[in-house]
């Protein structure tokens, strides 16, 4: 059911190295980030499509690629999927001027575009059925119910667990639809708190909690 990126709770990873490092360890890391943001500004895809492109990498590629290599691979795949670049152009490294070039992000608009952001709240006719304090259970299995193997933001480790709604965030674009060009389908978004013992069977300490931001259609009353 799950994809390789859905790794919350996984065993076998080693220790974390918190040693300080520069913002960009290599020049090409900076370039890869900037290229991805600038290409995104053309408006040919949304944040959910670009996340889905990265998590659609094969498990072998996802595991061997460093962080910015995943971004680059996702970007190349998206450019081809949206018809912005052809496979021949990708292979040859050159291509003719695109009709989309009027959408190019110029240097003098960078500050404005980054500061404007891209809020995911939208008006919606889906009314909230839960409120803080309510008990809910997450859907099981964690899957996209509209697209087989499709994008979802319900992590596998939180599937089928009971928790308590602690925050309501208004209505947000639903990634399960937006990642596939099926519209934004905004619906209520909540933060749900789960007891760590319920999630893992045994917690490091009784009473610890894991919280996640979950859309209404991921939840049912408990």
């Amino acid at each position, binding site marked *: 059911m799950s994809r390789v990126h*859905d790794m*919350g*709770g*996984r*065993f*076998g*990873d080693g220790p974390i*190295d*918190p040693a300080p490092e520069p*913002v*960009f360890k*290599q020049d*090409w890391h900076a*370039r890869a*980030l*900037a290229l991805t*943001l600038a*290409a995104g500004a053309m408006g040919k*895809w949304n944040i959910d499509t670009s*996340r889905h*492109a990265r998590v659609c*990498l*094969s498990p072998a*590629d996802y595991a061997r690629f460093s962080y*910015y*290599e995943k971004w*680059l*691979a*996702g970007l*190349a*795949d*998206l450019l081809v*999927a*949206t018809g912005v*670049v052809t496979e021949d*152009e*990708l292979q040859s*490294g*050159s*291509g003719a*001027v*695109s009709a989309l*070039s009027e959408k190019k992000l110029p*240097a003098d608009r*960078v500050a404005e575009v*980054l*500061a404007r*952001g*891209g*809020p995911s709240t939208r008006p919606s006719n889906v009314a909230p059925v839960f409120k803080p304090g309510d008990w809910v259970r997450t859907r099981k299995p964690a899957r996209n119910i509209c697209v087989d193997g499709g994008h979802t*933001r319900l992590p596998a*480790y939180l599937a089928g667990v009971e928790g308590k709604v602690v925050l309501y*965030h208004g209505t*947000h674009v639903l990634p399960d639809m937006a990642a596939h060009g099926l519209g934004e389908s905004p619906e209520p978004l909540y933060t749900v708190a789960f007891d760590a013992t319920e999630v893992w069977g045994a917690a490091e*300490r009784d*009473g*610890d*909690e894991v919280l*996640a*931001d979950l859309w209404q259609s991921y939840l049912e009353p408990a």
Partner: protein
Amino acid sequence: MPHDSHDHPHSLLPSDPALRVKALETLLTDKGLIDPAALDEIIDTYENKVGPQNGARVVARMWTDPAFRSAMLDDPMPKLIEMGLYGRQGEHMVIVENTEDTHNMVVCTLCSCYPWPLLGIPPGWYKSDAYRARAVREPRKVLAEFGVTLDEGVKVRVWDSTAEVRYLVVPRRPVGTEGMSEDELAGLVTRDSMIGCGLAREPGA
């Protein structure tokens, strides 16, 4: 949209990552889709302008100004907009405060969601498989690797950023900082403490 296949277009790019970026940048520049000067501008923004110093200002002000603190815990967006701290990856902020009995920690198990306008680009460890996999299951062991040991009585809340909400942790204000100015206090607020993987620095430490 990309889908599952064994011949992803990305495999057509050069195998060396630095050359791969160069090839894509050159192609998109030739096609008139990218302005290389815009890339320089984006890099300069996150290398020099937007970083944890922004979050530290917010925390220091929350430590010293009770009305501001209460407004930020209620809904930080109006004040963040006022302070010029709104932007990409910080559109829907929630601020959580560490207390005597609760320690908050932030992760994104599914990718690496992070509050860019307040903390900048996430550090390598935040994006690592090890942090993403382990923070939700064994936060105390992870904290120990950062040199942080919590009292047994303190409850840990790990916030997994699965949507577009972004979290900032307010670390506890160190003792012995009563007379310090907001600027001096901001100097004690580390990036890791605002992710919940560290504590604020002790004065003079």
